[in-house]
Structures are given as C-alpha cells and as structure tokens.
C-alpha cells in the first residue's frame, strides 16, 4: 500500500511504506539493516512462478524423489529369489574294538558336522563355485539377460568386465549363511528370471555335493594309506625276523635246537640204558665165569658205549658248537619272529577296522529344502524403497534448509 501526498508540487514526505512479514529466527528478532528496502542490486528478483526461492527444495527433495520414482517404477527390473537349505551330517564315532571307549556313552545316530558345514559354506561363496557355474550353468548369460535393467546387470556401464568384477557381482547375487541355532546352511540366489534362480541354486547344491564327496574320498585315502603303511611295516619286520632265523639255523647247522635236544636226550637215555644193561650183563658174567673170553668183548662194548654216551653229552652241552649255547640265540630269534607275526596280525586287524571306520565316517549332504521356482519377484521392493526415499529426501531437505538458515542468520 502506498500513500502519496495529494498535491503534486510537494515532495513526498513519507517514504514508501511497505509491509513485509518479518521472519522469526527464534531468538532476538533482528530487522533488516537496510531499513526496509529490497536490495536493488540482485539480478534475479521477484521471479514469478513456482520455483521462486525453492532451489534447495527442488534439489534436495524433488529431484531425488523424482529420480527414484522413475527408476523404481519404470526402469528397475524384477529380481527373483530362489532359496535352498541343506545340512551336512556324519555318523557318530563308534568305540574301538578293544572297548577302550566303552565307558563313554555312544549314540549310534548321525551328528552334525559343523566344521564341514562351514567349509561348504565357504566353498559356495568362493571363486571355485563361480568357475563351476561358469562352465556348467552359463551364469554370464543369466547375469546379462535382456530383462535386466542397465544398473543391475553384470557387465555394467560402470564396471569392467573381468573375473574379479564378476566375482563381486556373484557375491552380490548369491548369499549363503548358516542359521545360528539349527546349523542349517541356507543358499539364496537372485536372478532375473525364476528358472535362472532355480537352476543356479540346483547347480550350487550339486557342486556342494561334489565337494563333500571329495572330502570323503580324501579322508578315506588318508586313513587307508596310514593303515596300509603300518601293515607293510609289520610284514617287513616279520620277513626280517624269519631271515635272521634261517641264517642262524644255517650257521648253527641244525633246524631246531630244542627238538635236537630232545632227540639227543632220548638217544643219551637209550644209550645209557643199554650201557647199564651191558654193565649188568658184564657183572653177571664176571660173577658166573670170571675167565670167560667173552668178557673182553663185553668190556670193549661197554667202553664203546660209554664213549658214545660221552660224545652225545658233549654234543649237548659244553664247547662252542654245543646245542645248549645255540639254544639261547635260537630262543631269542624265535621269540622275535613270534612277536613280528603277532604284530602283523594286529596291524591287519587295524587296517580292516580303519577301512570300516572310513567307510562309515562319510559325510552326507542332505537337502532339507529343495530350491523352489519363484513365481513372484522379491526385489526391488518398490513401494517400500520409494517411501524410504521420500522420507530420506524430506529429512535431507529439512536438514539442508535448517543449516542454510542458521548460516545465513549470521550474515544479517
């Protein structure tokens, strides 16, 4: 509203009074220094239209909301998720055959193998699994479907097309984790077509089974290799002992000193019996006919017999090559051979047991939930993301406006 003097010849004494609303800053109210006149030096002033004075609003609120609306509702492609769950189990350990662990309560059921579950989880998220998928499931095609929008597909306008980037993208699309309480492994695959997601999940399960089989095979081989080595060693020792015994026998010149001893003792006994009979005979003859010429031959016979007995006795004990001295060595070697053969028997029993254990310690991958064919896209959650974006943009606008006002406050 302006007031002017009615008479044109008088200078307007009153200034132009313009009522302007004063913006409250929440503290001591400050008036414009210039005393009420708008700044004449600004270039763009009093712009008509909707956007006047609203640059910040446009930039921080309208633009993000608009862009996100366009992206979420027009451009973003559907992403389907297929999920599979599995567990890795192994039979519980059984006690040893000699009953050492019989005091420990044994459950003959299956246990969960937690280390192997973690190993399989790592494998699914690794480059090895990606290689398997590359060769068997043409995963590159699946990441580059025509349905995929230009931000979500794999090679992108802003990523390079090499194996490392593919791996990063793979980690973004495939998630695998182990449930806390139940130790069930979960694999969740995202893809641009439902059948793609299911195929990738199935292929990953197959690859995980392959890994489990490889683990089994390796465990088998290791256990058997060890047991075989022990058996070979025992065999070697046994052959060694046999050879030593043979050498000894050859050196001593007799097969079995103990039986030789028995034979020698029996012959000594026999000869002694005959000797005593001859002596009895001689005495009898001497008593009956002292001058008989047969006495001499009888005495000769007795002397020969005595020599024979002495000789047999000498063969048995005394001297270097007597039977008694070889008996000690023979006993020792015979004992060695006995122990070696027992060791071999026990090693073979162990090997048999190890083989059975290894076969029983197999890991099994049991699929609890098969990968399903999704019929509705899970991502992107368009309305949710849009609402979040609206709130975030509103917050951003409010924060920016507040800070701008605070700063501009100081320039008044």
């Amino acid at each position, binding site marked *: 509203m302006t007031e002017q003097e009615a008479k044109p010849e008088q200078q307007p004494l009153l200034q132009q009074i*313009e009522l*302007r609303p004063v913006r409250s*800053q*929440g*503290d*001591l109210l*400050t008036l*414009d220094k*210039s005393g009420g006149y*708008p*700044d004449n*030096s*600004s*270039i*763009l*002033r*009093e*712009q008509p239209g909707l956007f006047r*004075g609203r640059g910040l609003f446009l930039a921080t609120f309208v633009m993000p909301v608009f862009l996100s609306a366009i992206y979420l509702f027009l451009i973003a492609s559907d992403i389907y998720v297929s999920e599979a769950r599995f567990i890795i189990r192994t039979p519980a350990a059984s006690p040893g055959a000699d009953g050492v662990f019989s005091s420990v309560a044994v459950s003959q059921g299956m246990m969960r193998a937690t280390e192997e579950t973690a190993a399989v989880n790592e494998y699914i998220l690794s480059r090895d699994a990606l290689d398997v998928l590359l060769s068997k499931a043409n995963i590159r095609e699946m990441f580059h479907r025509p349905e995929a929008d230009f931000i979500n597909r794999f090679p992108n306008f802003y990523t390079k097309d090499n194996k490392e980037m593919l791996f990063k993208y793979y980690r973004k699309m495939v998630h695998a984790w182990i449930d*806390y309480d139940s130790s069930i492994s979960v694999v969740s695959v995202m893809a641009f077509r439902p059948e793609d997601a299911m195929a990738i999940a199935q292929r990953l399960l197959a690859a995980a089974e392959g890994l489990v089989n490889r683990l089994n095979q390796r465990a088998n081989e290791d256990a058997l290799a060890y047991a075989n080595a022990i058996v070979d060693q025992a065999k070697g020792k046994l052959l060694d002992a046999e050879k030593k015994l043979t050498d000894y026998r050859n050196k001593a010149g007799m097969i079995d000193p103990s039986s030789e001893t028995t034979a020698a003792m029996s012959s000594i006994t026999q000869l002694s019996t005959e000797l005593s009979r001859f002596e009895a005979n001689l005495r009898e003859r001497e008593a009956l006919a002292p001058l008989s010429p047969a006495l001499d031959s009888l005495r000769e016979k007795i002397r020969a017999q005595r020599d024979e007995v002495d000789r047999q006795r000498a063969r048995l004990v005394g001297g270097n090559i007597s039977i008694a001295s070889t008996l000690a060595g023979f006993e020792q070697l015979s004992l060695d051979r006995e122990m070696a053969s027992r060791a071999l028997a026990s090693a073979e029993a162990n090997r048999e047991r190890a083989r059975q254990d290894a076969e029983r310690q197999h890991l099994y991958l049991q699929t609890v939930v098969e990968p399903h064919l999704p019929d509705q896209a899970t991502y992107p959650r368009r309305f949710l993301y849009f609402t979040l974006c609206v709130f*975030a943009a509103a*917050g*951003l606008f*409010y*924060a920016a406006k*507040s800070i*701008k006002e*605070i*700063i*501009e*406050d*100081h*320039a008044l």
Partner: protein
Amino acid sequence: MSGHKWGAAGAANFFKGARIQLRVISTLMIREVLSRYGHENIGFFWIIGEPMLLTCGVMVLWSLTNQTHGAEEVGVIPFALTGYSHITMWRHIAFRFIRVMSHSSALVYHQYVKFFDILISKALLEVVAIFAAFLIALTLLWLLDLAPGIHDPLLLVGGWVFTAWFSLAFALCVAALSELSESTHQFLGPAMYLTMPLTGAFFFVDWLPPRAQAVMLWSPLVNGVEMFRAGLFPPDIATNFDVPYLVGSCFALTVIALPCVNYAQRHVQSPF
C-alpha cells in the same frame, strides 16, 4: 520474500554468513576452554590432559592387575585406549549439553552468536581435544611398543567423525529436552550408565555369539567404535561395522534433533 537475496548475491550472503559463523565458533571455543581452565598450570592444554589422565589411568590399572577383559591377543592397552577415548567423547558431550542453552543464554545477546554456534563449539572442542589426547597417548605407547601403529587413517578418522556426529546429534536432543522438561538431567546419568554396553567400548563384536552380534550391530556407537578400531589395529583383528547404516542413523538422529533444538531455543528460560 523481499530482503531475501537472489542469485549471486544470495550466494555471497551465504558465504559471508559462513565466514562469520566460523569466526564465532572458533571464538566460542577459545572462550570455552579459557573459562574452563584459565591460565594456571598448563592452561588450556588441560582440555587434552583431562581425558588423557582418565585413559592412561585405566590403562595402567588394567595392565597392572592383568585384567585383560578378554583382550589377550589384541593387547589390553590399545583396547583400553580406543574404548575409553570413544566412550569419554560420548559421555562428555552428552553431559555438557544438559541445560546448555539456559546456562549460556547471556552469550546470545551478541548479534552474531546464536544458540547453534554455542552448541557446535562445545561439541567441537570435545571432539578435537579427545582426539588429540588419543593421538598423543597412542604415539607415546607406539614408541614404547605397547600399541600398534595406525593401520588405516581413513577408517580411524572416519570412525571418530561418525561417532562425533552421532554424539552431537544425541546431545542436541538432550539439550532440547532438558530445556523443555525439568527432570531430564536426572534421567540422563542412569540412562548413560545403563546403556554403556551399547557403546561397544568394552568388547569386540567378534567376541560375541552370532545372535548377540546381530543385536549389537544395530547400535551406531558400536559400529563407530568398530570402525575406529579397524583403523588402528591390523586387519587380522576382526571388526564388523556397516558404514551406510552408520551414516543413515547419524543423519536420522540429526533430522530428529534439529527441529527439537529449533523449538527449544525459543523456550529457553534464562537463569537470571
């Protein structure tokens, strides 16, 4: 909206205001530190010395009594250093902002001093001073081979900045609420004490069972201290943090705090 400057003049206005505000804030910081510590002893270096005393005292105590608090392989001393610096900043800023607006309402009579400057200057002083205390203590300990050298400065400073941002946002809420209600300051003490596990200063997230880890990682302070520790310790110490979540939660709290402060500053009851 006349009086509002358009275009280039508007931008010049903005930067003029920014320059003035920066000067005001730095002046307020100097005033704050002088009014707290004066010129005796080491004067304003006490702003650095005070947190150092607390932190070093705790470190000495823990290492002398062999209370490792589970930090055997990490090292008690850097563990205590990072945790205590972090929690000191959080607590100092929050406690100093109780009724800050009414205590400093005399300053607002100056033309260029606004409440927001006072708040920012107090917080900034604490942030910078405690970070300086941390760096000095770390350098001394590193020279004595009791603490590792800084592994990743960006993560270190980033963790500190985000924690500072979150502390500031929370403290703004505290300032606003304490102006509007009489009994807020009584709740703050016990609340801070009871929520100390949520600050994550006394454990590594990696030490917790998986379910507890998921729960703890919802706390922005835990994310902040983990990021801070990731910057200090070598990467074989496992840390879990989520930067987008951290940024988002700081931002959300700021957006909540600003209107509260805007409202409360109109209702400041001067103590005089």
